[in-house]
């Protein structure tokens, strides 16, 4: 469990680990990075979130548990922090977010990923590299979450369904929702989608700074 000590300052990012087999390789990689901490998700109620800037939760997470502990997530966000969720939501634990809506798939073209507007997280990433892996479509996203008011859409499917969005209005922090695999897993240099993890990390740091600035300005008033 996380303890209050000076080393925590570097642990900006916390991945809430579902403890399942498919996450184990990703977890091993994170453990080698000094700015990441990996917490077993069931330890969340006993953890000190004060030094943490960003909580990352993937699609293997126990959403029954997250719903039970939704007040912790809400408090973390209202403290001006960032939550990134990548997966299919089915419980109401993430402020402003709606349940996942699967895409009615008639052909592989339905899986086409489009960049809705340029954004630093996806700078230099070719939409084709998100749509296809070795010529096969469907790995990246197979549906969407309906948007909360004023959300900023980053990526869509071919018919305009928003698969990746940022919500700065449902709480006093920032929420990024992606209807697919963990975006921090896109770090392989084999194609341009491998840029996503590093660019997302940079965006989180910038976003955290922006939230702090906003909060300081509103305090000054």
């Amino acid at each position, binding site marked *: 469990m996380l303890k209050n000590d000076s080393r925590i300052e570097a642990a900006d990012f916390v991945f809430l680990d*579902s403890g399942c087999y498919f996450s184990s390789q990703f977890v091993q990689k994170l453990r080698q990075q000094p700015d990441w901490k990996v917490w*077993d998700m069931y330890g969340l109620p006993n953890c000190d979130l004060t030094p943490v800037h960003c909580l990352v939760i993937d699609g293997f997470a126990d*959403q029954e548990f997250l719903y039970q502990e939704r007040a912790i997530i809400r408090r973390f966000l209202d403290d001006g922090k960032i939550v990134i969720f990548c997966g299919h939501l089915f419980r109401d634990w993430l402020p402003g977010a709606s349940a996942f809506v699967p895409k009615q798939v008639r052909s592989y073209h339905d899986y086409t990923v489009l960049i809705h507007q340029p954004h630093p997280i996806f700078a230099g990433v070719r939409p084709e590299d998100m749509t296809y892996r070795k010529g096969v479509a469907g790995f990246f996203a197979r549906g969407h979450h309906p948007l909360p008011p004023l959300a900023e859409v980053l990526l869509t499917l071919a018919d305009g369904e928003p698969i990746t969005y940022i919500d700065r209005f449902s709480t006093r922090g920032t929420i990024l929702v992606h209807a697919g695999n963990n975006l921090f897993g896109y770090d392989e240099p084999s194609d341009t989608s491998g840029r996503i993890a590093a660019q997302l990390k940079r965006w989180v740091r910038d976003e955290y700074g922006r939230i702090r600035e906003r909060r300081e300005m509103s305090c000054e008033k």
Partner: protein
Amino acid sequence: MRKIAALYGGNAHQQRTLYESKYRRFFAEVIYLPALYRGSLDEFDVLLVPSQLHQGLLARSQPQIRQFLNRGGIIAAFGAQPQPWLPGHNWEFRPTNFWWWLEPNAKSGLVLKRPEHDLFRYITLEDATWHYHGVFWPAAGAEILIEVEDGGAIFYIDKLTTPGTLILTTLDPEFHYGSYFMPATERFLDGFLPWLAEGQL
């Protein structure tokens, strides 16, 4: 009809699969994994264990699972099993080939070993064919129904290692069905669950 309990870890793919009405009707109870260590499996004939459960919680529930097998219970488990929490499966990791079907003269590598087995009145080999993440090397005497060409079991039944019955497959149909990916997995579940409920094991 056998009385089946399904384990549920609270994730999205399990939620979709286990609570889909055409599958939910096969389960007398869906047991939330974090609660299993406090409970008992005494009233059930079969425990269905989906893939991608919390490994630590599974380990904590070992006494319940062992007791269930020792009194002759049937465990059917899906997916990779890197931890030795079920007796005798001997998991071996294999890199996954998601793209075998795009290769020239495409072959999945899966081989039907016991075409006469009752399971295959419910599913075909094609219904069990998408990809796999590894193989098992079960104990001698286990009945291998599906294996891969270069060795290793994909689906087997072991009635010897414990007083109970272990039905293990490295396939993870509930993950793919619950993730809206791979149509064969729905056909697999459409046949596998009725067989588990009433077929000859």
